[in-house]
């Protein structure tokens, strides 16, 4: 098969065995790679109701067809398992060097199953794999662990993905760090590795994947790179290069939708102290960093000595991280925000969930739901950066109150009780990222219906589309005139956009591409991606097939979730969003329950799901060539069985 290695590595940690399995072309074309391939494997192989931290759970790391093809945004891979944070579909994506290296090493994906009795790491190199003892690196921070692994495998070009102490301590939002600062952040997949006693995966390869039309791939690359203006990411006037995604912070502040104080406020007075411009002008930026073959270089290396010493190798100032540990906790001390991010990376924890958990704790403390005993000497008041930095470390080590917060806000609120559920800002157990849905209705629906819970990366809508159309995927002026793209519009046409983008992003996460480089956030057109897939594989891939594939993958992940008990009742938003925004241009704006109800009705209808339950119908699943999924749901009594025909 061209464009792929056609090989999956299966690692059974209980038996200590590694085996190679073929990746069939039919599977590859139907599910592409990344999210799609992971969902295909996990839906087929996981029994519903299993403990995400038990040996029955499996972890899939999958590249996609474009991974490693020199083109901006192509250096990504997906990590997937049943999530210990949400109990449903768990998925996170990392960029950097790991994905391309795994493909050079001869594999399209790795499936890890079972559980090792003692700490181990996996060493994958040029078509071979071995399980090795990790006794001496268990307990080590990310970089120390990675350096030891590289020494042991005697190859400093090996790329290592690894968990930190947070993953070992089964912090439910622990992540997996690739290199030192590319995180597969969300849904607690680091804890899945920790539960399996798998500390790290090191890969190294010198092989290469064969492509159908390599000359065409080069032409596409050269054409892309000729447009110098578009290279830096067209979404931002000054470019992702200069500011990175933190440019968002000023935008949300200016438009009155910067989640602040655990979604109780939407403006943050100290925003300019932690903004992208302030950082760009600061002496802290040492250099710009990039992923392989990307022109954007949105990442930066930071160095500072006071009031905290920053370790340049760990610090990655992204919007979500800065908002999480900055504005969301009312912290305007820039270096402390970076320090907290650095610690999350060092210990291996998701910054969004960590910030969400800390803000939750601050609100609990403010409202007397946590006693002084609980938070000994922390000074857990809004904006206290010392407390934030300290708490990050306490969560990772599960010390004191950190042990409770390491469970995530949903479980923490259940344990605390006393009405603290109202401060737990999550959907399906996943702490919300920092987008004020009262001022962007499409995003509210996206939060409520995303397959991994409260997530901003499975659908982007609203502001993104007000100025940007894409006729290739049917988002044009005729079909979606300006009023339908308005951020506050919540009618059926907005829902339709959410559906289209959900399908599109499902395929982006399967190809696997970086969303900063493709429509609607970046300049690469969907048609160009289709051309890349065709040139790589020799298939006659089309936009229609791409969109249908996306819909198939979206439905497959939903099927995974309904098998775990998810239905319409779970597609909801925190109650706080029904309260009016207190200030700014959108003062008074709410996200009423009846609005969400109507949006859901339309959403299920457009998706071809049962409107009452939100469960995909057999008809829809069969239309998407997912008969085996429909049969499986039927076996579990989730969808009705087909009435037997009379003979």
């Amino acid at each position, binding site marked *: 098969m061209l464009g792929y290695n056609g090989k999956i590595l299966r690692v059974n940690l209980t038996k200590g065995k590694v085996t190679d399995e073929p990746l069939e072309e039919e599977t590859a074309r139907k599910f592409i790679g990344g999210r799609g391939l992971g969902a295909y494997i996990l839906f087929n192989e996981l029994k519903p109701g299993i403990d995400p931290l038990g040996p029955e759970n499996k972890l899939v790391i999958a590249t996609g067809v474009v991974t490693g093809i020199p083109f901006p945004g192509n250096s990504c891979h997906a990590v997937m398992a049943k999530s210990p944070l949400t109990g449903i579909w768990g998925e996170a994506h990392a960029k950097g060097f790991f994905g391309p290296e795994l493909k050079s090493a001869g594999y399209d994906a790795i499936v890890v199953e079972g559980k090792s009795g003692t700490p181990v790491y996996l060493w994958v190199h040029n078509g071979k794999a071995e399980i090795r003892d990790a006794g001496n690196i268990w307990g080590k921070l990310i970089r120390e662990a990675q350096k030891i692994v590289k020494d042991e495998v005697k190859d*400093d070009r090996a790329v290592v993905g690894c968990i930190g102490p947070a993953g070992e301590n089964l912090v439910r939002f622990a992540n997996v760090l690739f290199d030192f600062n590319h995180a597969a952040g969300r849904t607690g997949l680091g804890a899945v590795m920790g539960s399996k006693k798998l500390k790290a995966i090191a890969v190294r390869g010198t092989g*290469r994947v064969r492509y159908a039309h*390599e000359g065409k791939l080069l032409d596409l690359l050269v054409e892309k790179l000729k447009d*110098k203006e578009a290279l830096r990411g067209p979404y931002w006037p000054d470019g992702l290069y200069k500011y990175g995604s933190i440019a968002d912070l000023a935008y949300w502040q200016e438009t009155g939708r910067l989640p602040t104080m655990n979604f109780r406020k939407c403006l943050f007075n100290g925003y300019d102290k932690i903004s992208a411009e302030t950082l760009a002008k600061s002496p802290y930026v040492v250099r*710009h*960093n*990039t992923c*392989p073959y990307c022109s954007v*270089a949105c990442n930066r290396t930071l160095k500072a000595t006071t009031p905290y010493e920053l370790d340049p190798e760990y610090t990655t100032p992204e919007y979500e991280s800065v908002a999480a540990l900055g504005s969301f906790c009312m912290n305007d001390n820039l270096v402390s925000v970076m320090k907290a991010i650095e610690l999350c990376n060092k210990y291996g924890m998701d910054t969004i969930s960590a910030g969400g958990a800390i803000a939750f704790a601050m609100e609990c403390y403010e409202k007397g739901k946590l006693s002084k005993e609980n938070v000994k000497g922390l000074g857990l008041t809004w904006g206290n950066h010392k407390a934030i930095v300290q708490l990050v470390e306490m969560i990772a080590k599960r010390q004191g109150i950190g042990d409770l917060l390491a469970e995530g806000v949903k479980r923490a609120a259940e344990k605390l009780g006393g009405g603290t559920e109202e401060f737990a800002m999550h959907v399906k157990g996943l702490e919300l990222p920092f987008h004020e849905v009262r001022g962007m209705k499409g995003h509210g629906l996206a939060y409520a219906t995303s397959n991994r819970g409260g997530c901003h990366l499975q659908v982007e809508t609203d502001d993104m589309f007000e100025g940007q159309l894409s006729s290739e995927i049917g988002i044009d002026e005729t079909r979606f005139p300006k009023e339908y793209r308005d951020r506050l519009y919540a009618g059926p046409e907005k829902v339709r956009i959410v559906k289209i983008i959900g399908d599109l992003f499902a395929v982006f996460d399967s190809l696997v591409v970086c969303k900063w480089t493709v429509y609607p956030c970046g300049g690469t057109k969907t048609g160009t991606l289709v051309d890349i897939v065709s040139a790589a594989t020799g298939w006659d891939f089309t936009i229609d097939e791409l969109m249908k594939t996306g819909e198939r993958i979206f439905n497959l992940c939903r099927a995974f979730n309904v098998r775990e008990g998810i239905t319409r009742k779970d597609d909801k938003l925190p109650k706080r969003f029904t309260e009016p925004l207190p200030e700014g241009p959108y003062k008074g704006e709410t996200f009423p329950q009846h609005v969400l109800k109507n949006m859901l009705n339309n959403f299920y209808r457009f998706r071809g799901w049962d409107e009452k339950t939100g469960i995909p119908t057999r008809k829809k699943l069969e239309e998407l060539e997912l008969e085996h999924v429909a049969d499986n749901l039927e076996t579990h009594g989730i969808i009705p069985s087909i009435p037997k025909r009379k003979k």
Partner: protein
Amino acid sequence: MKLEISPEKCTGCSLCAAVCSARLVGEFSPSKSAVYVESLLPEKVVIRPYVCIQCDEHPCVESCPVEAIVEDKELGIYVVDKELCTGCGACIEVCPYSGLRLDPSKTYAIKCDVCRGKPRCVEICPTQTLKTAE
């Protein structure tokens, strides 16, 4: 024709190596390109491309025991004659710019030929780290 490098602008994206190898050997193989970037080691703090800049001193020419580095008068550059080159590596040793490297087959040295006058790496470099100079 000469090349000019502004190392401080380099982000380490390695697109130059991708297009270079595609032209030289018809495939994306950074290990076979004439320009290479050290950033492929993720923890490297210094990142920059290395490529022959067609310097005036060209110690590589004198170092070659088999006179395989020959002048292209039309373009005013020195190139490696792959047929003559034995892959001994003497030129690599003496180059002060780390501008040459050995092909993975170890049979010849790879040296930039400025794409016969229209260097692709310069054309595509997103940060203008690589430029042409007369």
